[in-house]
């Protein structure tokens, strides 16, 4: 099967964020990541578009995305001091939403930097 090629893709595994990677993929998985280092290759090849996990889990049981979003909103809203933490392996666009979340909740906001 002919693989599709994406040029100048960006690797977000480490802080170098190389943006010259050539990805060869078949829509389900990436088969080759040219120019990527050992770490980057593992990063690209280990993620697939397969549905390996349930959409969501609530108390360990499978749930729909809508249910999980509602449950998350309720837990966070009910809390007196909720913590929003992490934000390393995610996009800037999601990070902005996280800051907005902590701002709206009146909660705590922290990233990996504090470790």
């Amino acid at each position, binding site marked *: 099967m002919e693989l599709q090629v994406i040029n*100048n893709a960006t690797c977000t595994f480490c802080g170098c964020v190389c*943006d*010259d990677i050539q990805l060869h993929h078949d829509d389900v998985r990436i088969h080759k990541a040219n120019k990527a280092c050992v770490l980057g290759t593992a990063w690209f090849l280990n993620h697939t578009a397969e549905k390996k996990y349930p959409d969501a889990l609530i108390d360990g049981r499978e749930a729909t995305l809508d249910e999980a979003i509602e449950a998350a909103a309720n837990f966070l809203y009910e809390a007196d001091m909720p913590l929003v933490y992490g934000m390393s392996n995610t996009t*800037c666009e999601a990070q902005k939403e996280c800051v907005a979340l902590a701002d*709206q909740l009146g909660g705590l906001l922290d990233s990996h930097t504090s470790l």
Partner: protein
Amino acid sequence: MLRITGGKVYDPANGIDGVVKDLCIDDQGLFVPAVEGGRTIDATGMIVFPGGVDVHTHVAGGAINFARAMTPEDHRRTQAFIRTKSRRSGLGGMAPTTFATGYLYAGMGWTTVNEAAVPVLSARHTHEELADIPIVDKASLTLMANNEILLDQLEKGEFERAKQVLAWYLWSAKSYGIKAVNPGGVAAWKYGHDAKQLTSPIDGYSKLTPGVIVTHLARICDELGLPHPVHLHCNNLGAPGNISTTIDTLKHLEGHRAHIAHSQYHAYGGDGWDTMCSETAQLAEYFNAHPSITTDAGAVLFGDTVTITADGPWQHLLYKLTGRKWGNLDVENETGCGIVPYTYRPSNLVNAVQWAAGLELLLLIKNPWQVFLSTDHPNGGCFWRYPEIIELLMRADVRKESLLKLPDGIKGKITLPEIDREYSLYEVAISMSAGPARALGLFQKGNLGLGCDGDVVIYEEDENVRKMFGHPRYVIKGGEIVLEDGEIREAPSGREFIVKPPCDPGIDDFMRPLFEDCYTMSFENYPVEMERIHNPRMQDCIEVPR
């Protein structure tokens, strides 16, 4: 839809000087002759101005964001905007957060701001921050006077090529115009040097001088028809005796349009810190004789601030002078930046000269359409202190009182004590709105005429000028009441002005190999995509008469 009735209107763009007049704004946020329905503001007895326009400020991007990181001690003492259901929280101070920047500007009636220094590599970042500054409309200028690829073209005498390279960069950055900072000096700073003489070759070049860069950037901006001319931060900023460099720079413009940034920092005499004095009279005279050049004051106010400038070598000097924190950024082969917190003190002779020099320029340049209110925020003082400057311009007695705080040694170093001029409201409206809007080529701003943007600020007349300008009764942005009775009502997102200069499509093929040789990111990923600009507004290029 909005109607403003009975106010005393100051609209210098249309020659209206304190005439009682009604204004109407339609659903598109534009001034129209009449509207049906909607709210009416009774402005009887009040003063109506076009919304303020800041021609030169630093509110978004890598440098100010570095300054935020460096000054947590200021954040924790300064103004705090408390979160509401619909409005984000924020902090003011020397380097306000993006949300607070919008609230603070709108809070004193400013509705358009120009971020004056953006490296192309940081453009994507800057646009993201600009999108997070609510209420005001925005434009940004691209740093070009130390870009190696451009400088190489000028060194080779390839002027047509240089013009295309510059157009390519400008469009890659999705910006509004060109900023030149310490031409050649920031490039030399990469190796610890500076460029101080307009006619001496820059380190690493055999023919290229700062003067050549100035002449050609001014010419290129005119030939491309950019609505805002080259925005020039001259060489030798802040140094005693730099007036000769500044006058020399102005002569290198060779008749082209230009906007000279923060002139106050470029108008000193003397030959050392002990002998430093104000030479604003000389500079003002040059402006008075050359009406095609505009400037902003870069006025200094006493107190704490943080200085940020692409002028890296100057910031290293300031770090050595003050012994305070110093941040340095190098933006590959494009430009750089330095950050140093600073306190201007009236007891310090140099600071006293700077304070006087900013006001002198605003008072000695006769035509208010040539010199605009600015503090080069945050360098000379924070933008939210503009009402203090307006008071100093309108009230000679307040100036006299302030002069008493200066040390005796100031005698003979400044001319401010001899100046009696007081700004009229009409002149203030030019200096804070109509003038900078015209200089930026934003003809829909700073203008209450039909078809222009419905940005209005309404003041209650008050003897206390600082209070009047610091606390408008209403601020209207695009027909929407964003501030009323001292409270922010709405925080809509503003627009961003962008220019697309004419550009030879073949320039991509020329740029690619040069780019791939020295940049650390992919050529394809470098230009900012149009989709990334929040609420873009294209502004047309213009025909610049020679």
